[in-house]
């Protein structure tokens, strides 16, 4: 018998080469961008944090030092750090407890209405958050809309102090961060197979049991990524405590901002930034571990 074996149309080596070039070509703009605007600045901050402050401003590169880190271990600064962590944590929890039922509700509504509800969440994003924060001030301040109305209606005699306290800072934080909690929660809840809840009820679980044993574990990844997305940026949100907390509330983000802008102590500001970055890494690690080895962090 005469068997003819033809050449394969192209060799495997060529194919491999093509496969390798593709992703690199696509990624390179991103890589260059990240190098210039992320990696280099971080390195500069790390370097700056180990030197002294310059005479007027800037950095005196003459002698490296750990002083910036050591001086952070002061009672006042540590209190600011803990206050900030507490506010971030409370903000995260409030967002979670408000956001979960909302996301659940949206995921359960018929498809045609879901877009509307999600729009309600996303729409405020189209306005600058600074402007939205000013809007809150107009609502809350002593001569603001709420107080004026309550006074006119004779419900109160003296204006309530709604602004410039911890509550108003929390309000602003929750308001700003809420979508970051809802969206990841929605995306996991939307994927949740509701027949599993029927199965749980069928097997004798009351709605609460079914929620605790089925819904909650299956939406854990959404809870964790939502919490991370709220917790981390809240720690760095400086304009809300600035605007809504007045002079009484100083959070870590304000502290950093002040080091760079008013105190002109760039090395100290850098050191605090590095401490925060390290803390964040710690939290991220913790959150990922809580998510279990199987569930990867799912961010939207």
């Amino acid at each position, binding site marked *: 018998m005469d068997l003819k074996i033809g050449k394969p149309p192209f060799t495997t080596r060529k194919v491999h080469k093509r496969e390798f070039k593709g992703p690199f070509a696509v990624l390179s703009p991103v890589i260059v961008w990240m190098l210039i605007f992320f990696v280099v600045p971080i390195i500069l901050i790390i370097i700056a944090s180990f030197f002294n402050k310059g005479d007027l401003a800037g950095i005196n590169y003459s002698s490296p030092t750990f002083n910036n880190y050591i001086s952070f271990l002061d009672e006042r600064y540590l209190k600011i750090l803990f206050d900030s962590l507490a506010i971030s944590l409370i903000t995260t929890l409030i967002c979670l407890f408000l956001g979960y039922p909302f996301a659940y509700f949206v995921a359960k509504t018929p498809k045609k209405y879901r877009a509307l509800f999600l729009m309600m969440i996303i729409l405020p994003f189209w306005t600058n958050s600074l402007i939205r924060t000013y809007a809150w001030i107009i609502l809350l301040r002593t001569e603001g809309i709420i107080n004026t109305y309550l006074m006119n209606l004779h419900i109160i005699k003296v204006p309530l102090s709604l602004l410039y306290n911890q509550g108003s800072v929390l309000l602003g934080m929750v308001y700003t961060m809420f979508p970051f909690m809802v969206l990841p929660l929605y995306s996991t809840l939307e994927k949740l*197979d509701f027949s599993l809840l029927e199965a749980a009820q*069928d097997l004798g679980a009351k709605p609460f049991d079914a929620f605790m044993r089925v819904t909650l574990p299956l939406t854990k990844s959404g809870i964790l990524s939502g919490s991370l997305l709220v917790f981390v940026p809240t720690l760095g949100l400086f304009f809300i405590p600035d605007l809504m907390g007045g002079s009484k509330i100083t959070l870590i983000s304000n502290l950093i901002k002040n080091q760079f802008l008013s105190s002109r102590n760039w090395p100290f500001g850098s050191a605090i930034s590095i401490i925060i970055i390290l803390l964040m890494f710690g939290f991220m690690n913790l959150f990922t571990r809580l998510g279990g080895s199987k569930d990867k962090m799912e961010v939207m």
Partner: protein
Amino acid sequence: MVRLNHVVKIFDDQDNLEAAAVNDISLEIREGEFLTILGPSGCGKTTTLRMIAGFEKCTNGDIFIDNENVSDKAPYERQVNTVFQNYALFPHMNVYDNIAFALSIKKAPKREIEEKVSKLLKTVQLEGMENRMPDQLSGGQKQRVAIARAVINNPKVLLLDEPLGALDQKLRKQMQVELKHLQQKLGITFVFVTHDQEEALIMSDRICVMNNGSIEQFGTPDEIYERPKTRFVADFIGETNFFEGIIKERKENYSIMQMGSLDVATLNGVVYSEGTTLCFAIRPERLKLKASPTSDDCYIKAFYKERIYVGSVIKTVLTLNNGKQITISEASGDIFDINASKDIFVTWKSSQGVVIN
């Protein structure tokens, strides 16, 4: 055991509120039986099952389980369990925890849970799979876990919603027999929903055929197959030839039905008055091809069209005078030689046809 009393279901979001998904169904399920609700998709069979389970509320009528009216009870208050179409295994729990779910909800002692789970694992032949996660199981294994999970609490009734739908043909056949054996072993009443008529015939003690939200016929598999009451049942279950016509002449012991230009003498001793419109159904395997009919045969002359080889049987399609087609199936070893004679007659015994209103 389970009784449905004039049950009606109309969905709120239905486009047409007039058409009920389930329309006035009354049904009694006996203890220990394997009952199949059979029907095409959209006939209301799954809705009926979901109402028994408690996932849907009846718009009207009542459901009784063990003589207790459960119409207003939640699923977790009813002693019935369900095997879902997609199994609905908890993806975050392993096989053991899935099966143990019902007992751990009841806060049963650990020892008891362990005992029962391992016993059930043996029953469904999944020993050693305790630690597998659902996504590591094959379709057939998932199915078994779903069954084990549903029966661990000794439900009075096990509801199965097309549980074999996702399996391939061969596994499906195997599971049909296994499920039947399992039901006999467990002694639990099974209510099985399917659209597969063959499956229904193989597995059931009784079949309830549904169409458009109503029960068409309720009976044993051979009643359903041999003596279908409605045209729908005859058509849906197995293959059937229909003869439609008007009674032309009433004789003492039989009637003569006219089908177009054909006269068919028929009807097993039952006499119909002249002018009655009837439909007459006869299974392909009850028909015989002959060169000349004998005196006690009912017959129609027909013209050969084609033969289809199926394997165990050979189907012959013939055309009648009036253009209608008729299918006959013959056992592979016993085939009429169509070239043997000029005329071909389709014959049957008068007792083999069924008159359908």
